């Protein structure tokens, strides 16, 4: 019985978790502060009360959290765990890459590790260099994982459910600047969709701008400004970087003949390189060289004035697109 509710992004995540815990008795939810306190961002509020022991707090032990997820998933549980910041994955990446990603493959399907790891990433005003990185490229490089970055309220709900229902290990990368940034209508209770698939956020004809994560809102701002300048940009939200929906991108680029990829992560070695390379390999003829927009080589500084010079803004995006279109 689908229903529509006005929710914040955080509430949409909460609604998805609640539904998963209701409909999947084998689902567990655990991580640092996710139980009794309801999460440092309030995302898991009320769930411990509703579901008791299935929702619990853990020590500050990311290897135990991820290993606990892998082990319990091997035995039929459906753990949903939280790594509070993507940066913190780096103390325990082994459990995701060397463990979760291998279980099914090595056992030829005799075992599996269907875990869902929620995290959130990116820069926010005042956040330090150890709380600001965008690391999707790491996860996207690992066969055996699936990776999505919900950037709308509806996707916060939908993609998380797709992840939990998926029988593979999935990393869901949220963004804390979106959690409480306003309410939107979210359709709850609909059919759970399979993972994968990009979304067209703004149709256009002159240039394809592919993006993902919170960056998409800056890209859409830029696209509105560009429209004022007579440039009609098509904005695609990749949503999933593994599997990446290359077909939708190629279709768009074939129409527009121009490709810009914008992400918050560092440009060098970022997933934008993968995207541009895949389009180049496909031999799609372009009117101008493809363009990547991302953070330059620097660490992410805390002061907003400094971070603002590293993380691409709508201005930077608009300028780069304009330059590409007029190239």
């Amino acid at each position: 019985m689908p229903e529509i509710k006005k929710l914040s992004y955080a509430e949409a995540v909460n609604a998805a978790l609640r539904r998963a815990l209701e409909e999947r008795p084998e689902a567990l939810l655990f991580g640092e502060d996710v139980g009794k306190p309801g999460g440092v961002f309030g995302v898991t509020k009320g769930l411990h009360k509703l579901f008791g022991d299935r929702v619990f707090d853990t020590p500050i032990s990311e290897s135990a959290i991820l290993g606990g997820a892998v082990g319990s998933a091997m035995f039929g549980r459906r753990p949903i765990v939280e790594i509070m910041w993507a940066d913190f994955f780096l103390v325990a990446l082994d459990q995701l890459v060397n463990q979760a990603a291998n279980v099914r493959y090595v056992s030829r399907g005799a075992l599996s590790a269907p875990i869902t790891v929620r995290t959130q990433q990116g820069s926010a005003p005042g956040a330090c260099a150890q709380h600001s990185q965008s690391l999707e490229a790491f996860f996207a490089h690992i066969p055996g994982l699936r990776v999505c970055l919900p950037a709308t309220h509806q996707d916060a709900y939908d993609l998380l459910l797709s992840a939990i229902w998926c029988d593979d290990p999935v990393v869901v990368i949220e963004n804390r600047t979106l959690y409480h940034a306003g309410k939107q209508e979210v359709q709850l209770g609909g059919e759970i969709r399979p993972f994968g698939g990009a979304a067209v956020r703004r149709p256009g004809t002159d240039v394809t701008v592919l993006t993902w994560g919170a960056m998409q809102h800056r890209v859409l701002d830029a696209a509105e400004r560009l429209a004022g300048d007579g440039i009609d940009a098509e904005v695609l939200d990749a949503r999933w970087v593994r599997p990446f929906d290359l077909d939708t991108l190629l279709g768009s680029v074939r129409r527009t003949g121009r490709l810009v990829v914008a992400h918050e992560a560092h440009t060098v070695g970022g997933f934008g390189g993968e995207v541009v390379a895949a389009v180049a390999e496909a031999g799609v003829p372009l009117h101008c060289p493809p363009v990547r927009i991302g953070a330059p080589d620097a660490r992410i500084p805390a002061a907003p004035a400094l971070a603002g010079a590293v993380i691409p803004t709508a201005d930077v995006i608009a300028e780069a697109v304009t330059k590409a279109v007029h190239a």
Partner: protein
Amino acid sequence: MPEPAALLRHLEAMQRIRFFEEEVTRLRGTGDVVGSVHLCNGQEAVYVGACAALDLSRDAVFPTYRGHGWTLACGAPPHALFAELLGRRTGINGGRGGSAYLTAPEHGMYGENSIVGAGAPIAAGAALAATFDGSGRVALAAFGDGALNQGAVHEAMNFAAVRRLPVIFLVENNLYSELTPIADMVRIDKLFRRASAYGMPGARIDGNDPEAVRTAVAEAVRRAREGEGPVLLEAMTQRIVGHYIGDAQHYRPAGELDEAASAEPIGRIIRELLAAGVDQSEVDPVVARVAREIADASAQALADPIADPSTVLEHLYA
């Protein structure tokens, strides 16, 4: 004093592992087995004793790369293990796991682990599942002395202790981590003492005596099944071979290997059997039977077809 029949069963199980490892050594020499292989000669009593205390239809074992012995003690067929090491289609993981990353869930062996210490949190997770599924499952994480210095093991032990998870942490203390003595890498070489930091019981046991191991693990299993939480057991043993095949063990002090050889569990259990009045003529057929079993399994595996490369992209995802 245990029944001679029980000792004979232990002998058989340990001898199966020993012959297996000796055959692997031969196959590594001929080049049929390739790559880094970690043998467990000398440590067999740990596996045989522990598995005798587990109910492998529901319990779950998580060993390390040094896991042939565990896998055999769990009851996996030697043929499928040889085939795995030989990269055959009939390998227990079709050649995907290899010597160091075997999985045999149908026998209660839920995966060797080649990342030191990484099996401990996964075992805690298996135990966590047991607190919800009514299975009564106990998980056993086995790892080496050196693994205790790995962060993931620490996290797993605290996590298990605080949630009273039904998991047994079993240290195979063979005195070395690769080529380095554990005594040089810790200040307190009674490793079981670390348990108290987490508020769980810890004990040192004779890892060359399968009955001592069985008894200690059985008590740990009982506790775990009754919701009393985890335990840290430190089984003292020694490998009487190198860390990997080819390791010349120059780092071992003179005499140490000889001493280890004279204390190794197979010779010791035979001496115990004879002392208990069992006749050599009852021992010999057991040994001979296992020798034949292993030789046959190896020959059969060698005759099996090589793993099929056309399947290599399968089973990455559901």
